[in-house]
């Protein structure tokens, strides 16, 4: 019984990480119809910021990671995506790949490709008693951080003027602009928010794995992207749900598959993904009224 609860906690916490990553990708897709694979590098750069600031007080490290992810998100939007805003989605997709590779190689050039150990917030590795079951503190923190960010993002989108502008832009960007919604502002805010989400994921992953390496972000983003697709591209709740399900499924398969099949757990996840898309090609929670890009 205790083992089952532990596995479930693990599944939920890993699912939460992928949900946050998928949400970052979904947010940008919503307003720009851009699948931003360079979202992974926001995660990676935030992690290397933690490494660079190692030894400083924790709040400074966190602040540094979040700031770097936001600034990098805004710079990439301005330099790489704004000039292509009227290009077709394939061009945007390819440029996001190019940007992702460029940032990865840049990092390798600056710090090398070797994996580096980083003992960030070791206190979170502690086991705690929770409702009679021993759980890792980090899992609970991960789940709480994900819930807080989801609630905050929902509040922002539903209750603020800028959030309303973002939702309108996601549905029909041209009409939103006709009404006076500022395209540059809405897109910049979406990128800044994706930077915050990326930094949160980065910090949690670094605590969990204890290492940083230049490809860490891309690996997360590819799985999370699969999550946004099965959730329904263009729908934020779909992205969160899809990311969560893919992440949680990976852990559950790891735990419950016969040992000699565990090496193929990704294959099982992708079979499940294929089945979902076969029966619900629009995703689990389809986006309503996808129209004009901009």
């Amino acid at each position, binding site marked *: 019984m205790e083992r089952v609860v532990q596995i479930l906690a693990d599944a939920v916490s890993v699912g939460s990480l992928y949900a946050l990553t998928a949400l970052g990708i979904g947010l940008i897709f919503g307003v720009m119809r851009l699948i931003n694979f360079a979202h992974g590098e926001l995660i990676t750069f935030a992690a290397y910021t933690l490494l660079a600031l190692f030894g400083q007080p924790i709040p400074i490290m966190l602040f540094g990671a979040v700031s770097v992810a936001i600034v990098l998100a805004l710079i990439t939007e301005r330099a790489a995506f704004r000039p292509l805003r009227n290009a077709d989605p394939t061009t945007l997709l390819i440029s996001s790949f190019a940007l992702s590779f460029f940032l990865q190689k840049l990092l390798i050039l600056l710090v090398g490709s070797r994996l580096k150990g980083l003992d960030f917030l070791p206190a979170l590795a502690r086991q705690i008693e929770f409702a009679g079951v021993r759980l890792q503190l980090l899992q609970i923190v991960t789940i709480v951080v994900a819930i807080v960010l989801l609630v905050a993002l929902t509040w922002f989108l539903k209750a603020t003027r800028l959030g309303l502008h973002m939702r*309108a832009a996601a*549905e029909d960007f041209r*009409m*939103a*602009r*006709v*009404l*006076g919604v*500022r395209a540059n502002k809405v897109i910049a805010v979406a990128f800044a928010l994706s930077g915050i989400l990326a930094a949160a994921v980065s910090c949690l992953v670094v605590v969990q794995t204890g290492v940083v390496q230049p490809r860490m972000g891309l690996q997360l983003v590819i799985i999370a992207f699969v999550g946004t697709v099965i959730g329904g591209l263009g729908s934020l709740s779909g992205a969160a749900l899809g990311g969560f399900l893919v992440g949680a499924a990976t852990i559950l398969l790891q735990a419950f598959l016969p040992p000699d099949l565990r090496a193929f757990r990704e294959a099982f996840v992708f079979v499940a993904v294929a089945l979902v898309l076969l029966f619900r090609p629009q995703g689990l929670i389809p986006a309503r009224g996808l129209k004009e890009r901009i």
Partner: protein
Amino acid sequence: MTSGAPLLAVSGLVVRYGAVNAVREVDLDIAEGEIVGIVGPNGAGKTSLMLTIAGIVAPAAGTVTFAGRPLGGIALEDVVAQGIALVPEGRHIFASLTVMENLLLGATIRHDSRAVAADLDRFFGMFPILAERRRQPAGQLSGGEQQQLAIARALLSRPRLLMLDEPSLGLAPLVVDQIYALLGTIRAQGVTILLVEQNAERVFGIADRVHVMSGGKFALGGDAAEIKSHPRFDAAYFGVRMREAASEP
């Protein structure tokens, strides 16, 4: 036309999509307080003309001047702040947002939240169905209700010029009566209206002046009553349509 400078002045406007000339050297003046109608068959360039005034389509040549200021080079999202509001063809309401959120988006450029609230109350009086359904997703409204929403949303920017593209399209005649009665009320409140329609009869019933557009040009223009009984009206409107229909593959 009344004296003084026109509210909207379009001069020598040309709109091209690739090799296709959608609008060819059109001139159009609209005085404050007028209702001007543009009628013509499908593909005549009416919508292109309207989208160019709204800043959505960039002209290949010519100028658009509004309230004495040239609109050339102005960003799409800044046009509404000049005092121009658009009710586009197909309405383009935000289906997944509530009726209330759609209306608030209409007031995007305004920061006088108290006056916006007062306007909302006024519109809910004019459009009781919108008041009743303010918390529902706008996609659940009927076509006529969506048209009312699109008009109310446009009015919330407090425009000096309201442009409507095919407001009667796809609506039952009774609903169209309501929409046109509404346009009369809006004009009485001092808003200038530019109306694009295939449904010429409706336009004659409300417009002060009418232009007949075909093949990207104004074929005929003048007072509504004069155009309605003009001997060349049918030729200008229907003649071109028949020729276009004949040339289609």
